[in-house]
C-alpha cells in the first residue's frame, strides 16, 4: 500500500506539491515564530536578570487631598521601620528602602543629568550590581549620612571621560560627594532606559542633602528580594499582611501601598493557540485537496475496486497519501523555518531559541492533522460503489 500511495503522489507532482505547500508554510512559520518568540523571551529574561531576580517593589500608596489624588508614591505611608520589619520575614533575602530622582551632577567643567538613588547596602545585591573598582558604602555611612557615591559607567564616562573617577569629587545639589566605587556595566532595562546612568548614595544623605524630605523616616519605595522564585508568592502574602498590620488597616480597607512584581511570568498559552491555528489552516488545506483528489480520481478508485481492491485498501492508500504529504510538508517546513530563523539571526541582532520540544510538538500536531483531515476524504473514496465509480467521467 505504501508503494501505491507513493506512486499516486508521484503521478501528480503538481497537486502533491501544492498540498504540501500548505503544510510547509504552516510548519515553517510556526517554527520561525516560535524561534523568534522564544528568543525574545530569552532576551527579556536576560534583561530582567540584570535588574535583579525575584524582586518585589513596595510603593507607598496614593493620597487624596481635597479631591486631588496623587499617584503611587505620593503619600508618606512607607517608613524605614517598615523596611526593617520586612527584612525579618521568612523567605526574604534583601530589603532596601529607596529614594531616587534625577539630578544634575557636576564635576569640574562637566555636568550631566543622572538618576540618583539613595538607598542602603542590600540594594546592590538585590539589583545585582557589582563594583568593578573601589568599594561599596556600608551601614555606618547610612547612619552618619556620609557624602560618598558609587558611580555607574555612563555617568562616569560623561563626567570624567577617560579620567579615573575613583577618589574624585562630584557635586550633587551643591553638596560634594566622594566617589568611592565604580559600578559594573548592566546595559538597558526593559524600558530602554540606560541602567548605567546612575549614581548610588546612602539613603540618609539623599534625603537630607539631595531630595529633602518633608516626612522624616518615610520612603517612597522599598525593594524586596525573595530568596527563590518558589518563595515569591509566600513573600508577597506575608509582606502584605505585615504592612496592613503595621499600618493598622481594618478588614475591607484598601492597602495604602502597592506591591509590584518586576518579572511577570511570560504567558505561554497564547503561543500554543497560535501554533494550533496555523497548523489547522494547513490541515484544512490537505483535506480540501484530498477531497478534490477523491472526486478527480473517482475513476481510478473504480478501476482499483474492479480489479480486486478492498475498501480498506483504498482507505489506507488515501490515508497514507495524506500522512506522507503532511509529514513531508512538515519536514520541509521544519528545514525552511530553521533556515529562516538562522537567517533572521544573522541579519539582525534578534536572539533565536529553537527548543526540541517545540519542534516535536509542531511535528506531532501536523502529522495528526494530516491523518485527521485525510480520513474523511479517504473514507469517502473507500465508500464508493465500484460500478458508480467506473461510470464517473
Amino acid at each position, binding site marked *: 500500500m505504501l508503494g501505491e500511495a507513493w506512486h499516486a503522489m508521484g503521478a501528480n507532482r503538481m497537486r502533491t506539491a501544492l498540498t504540501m505547500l500548505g503544510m510547509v508554510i504552516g510548519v515553517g512559520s510556526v517554527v520561525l515564530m516560535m524561534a523568534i518568540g522564544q528568543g525574545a523571551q530569552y532576551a527579556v529574561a536576560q534583561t530582567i536578570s540584570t535588574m535583579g531576580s525575584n524582586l518585589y517593589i513596595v510603593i507607598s500608596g496614593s493620597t487624596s487631598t481635597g479631591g486631588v489624588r496623587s499617584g503611587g508614591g505620593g503619600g508618606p505611608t512607607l517608613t524605614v521601620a517598615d523596611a526593617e520589619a520586612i527584612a525579618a520575614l521568612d523567605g526574604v533575602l534583601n530589603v532596601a528602602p529607596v529614594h531616587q530622582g534625577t539630578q544634575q551632577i557636576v564635576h569640574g567643567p562637566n555636568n550631566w543629568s543622572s538618576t540618583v538613588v539613595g538607598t542602603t547596602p542590600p540594594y546592590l545585591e538585590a539589583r545585582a550590581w557589582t563594583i568593578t573598582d573601589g568599594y561599596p558604602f556600608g551601614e555606618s555611612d547610612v547612619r552618619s549620612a556620609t557624602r560618598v557615591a558609587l558611580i555607574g559607567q555612563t555617568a562616569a564616562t560623561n563626567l570624567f571621560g577617560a579620567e579615573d573617577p575613583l577618589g574624585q569629587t562630584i557635586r550633587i545639589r551643591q553638596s560634594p560627594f566622594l566617589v568611592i566605587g565604580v559600578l559594573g556595566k548592566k546595559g538597558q532595562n526593559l524600558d530602554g532606559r540606560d541602567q548605567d546612568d546612575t549614581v548610588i548614595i546612602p539613603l540618609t544623605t539623599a534625603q537630607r542633602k539631595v531630595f529633602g524630605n518633608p516626612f522624616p523616616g518615610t520612603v517612597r519605595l522599598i525593594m524586596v528580594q525573595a530568596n527563590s522564585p518558589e518563595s515569591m508568592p509566600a513573600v508577597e502574602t506575608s509582606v502584605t499582611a505585615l504592612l496592613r498590620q503595621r499600618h493598622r488597616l481594618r478588614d475591607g480597607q484598601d492597602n495604602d501601598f502597592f506591591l509590584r512584581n518586576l518579572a511577570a511570568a511570560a504567558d505561554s498559552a497564547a503561543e500554543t493557540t497560535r501554533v494550533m491555528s496555523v497548523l489547522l489552516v494547513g490541515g484544512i488545506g490537505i483535506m480540501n485537496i484530498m477531497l478534490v483528489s477523491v472526486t478527480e480520481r473517482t475513476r481510478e478508485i473504480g*478501476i*482499483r*475496486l*474492479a*480489479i*480486486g*481492491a478492498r475498501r480498506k485498501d483504498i482507505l489506507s492508500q488515501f490515508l497514507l497519501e495524506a500522512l506522507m504529504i503532511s509529514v513531508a510538508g512538515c519536514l520541509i517546513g521544519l528545514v525552511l523555518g530553521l533556515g529562516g530563523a538562522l537567517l533572521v539571526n544573522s541579519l539582525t541582532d534578534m536572539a533565536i531559541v529553537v527548543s526540541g520540544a517545540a519542534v516535536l510538538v509542531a511535528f506531532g500536531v501536523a502529522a495528526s492533522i494530516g491523518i485527521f483531515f485525510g480520513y474523511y476524504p479517504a473514507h469517502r473514496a473507500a465508500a464508493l*460503489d*465500484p*460500478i458508480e465509480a467506473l461510470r464517473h467521467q
Partner: protein
Amino acid sequence: MPEPAIRVVGLGKSYATAAGDFPALKGVDLAIAAGEFVAIMGPSGSGKSTFMNLLGCLDTASCGDYFLTGRNVARLTGDELAAVRNQTIGFVFQGFNLLPRMSLEDNVALPLVYAGAERAARRAAARQQLARVGLADYAASLPSRISGGQQQRVAIARALVNSPRLLLADEPTGNLDSHTSEEIMRIFCDLNREGITVVLVTHENDIAAFAQRQVRFRDGLIVGDAPTPRTADAAC
C-alpha cells in the same frame, strides 16, 4: 453433470429513478459451462450490460442467485466480492480502464498488489502477461504512448495476471476499428482454447460470430440462446 462455471437463477436488478424503480433486468436464468465462449447480444437498454456487471461482481443484484463455480456470490459481503473480482474473474472494459499515470507493467501488476504478492513476483508475472499479448517491449511505457488496440491488449494482460478461469468482456472492441477488433478477438479465441471460459458483450454480429454460443437480451429478459451458425470464416 459438472457444476457450470456460471449459473444464474431469477437474477434481477432495479434502479431507483425519479419515476420510481426501473427494472433493468427482470429475473433471468442462464447457465454457462466451463470452457464455453459466449457472446451476450442485444440493443442498447436491453439489460446486457447490467447483466455483465452483475456477472463481474461490480454490482449487486436486487433479487435472484448467482452461482460462480457452485458458490453463491449474490450473498457475499464487500470484501469477499473484492476477493472474487481479484482472484476468480478477469474483466475487460470497453474503455480499457488503464491507470493513465502508471507504466504498462505497473498497470498489469496492479491486481497482484491487492492479492498481496511480493514485488519481484508481481514484476515477473506482469512481464509474462505482457509478453503473452505481444507487448513485452512496452513494459515501461505509459498507456497514452500506445494505440487503442495495444491498450486493450494490456487490459487483457491485466485481467489474466491472477490466472482467472473466467474472462468477462464488456464490448471490448467497441472503441476499436475492425482490423484491430479482429486481433483482439483472436486473443480471446486463443485464451478460450487454453480452457478459459469467455463471456463477452457485443452488439456487432461479426464480433459475436467468434463465440460458440450467442445469448440475446431484450427489455431485461433473455429472448434467444443458440449456438453460432458455423458458416463465417472469421470464427475461431
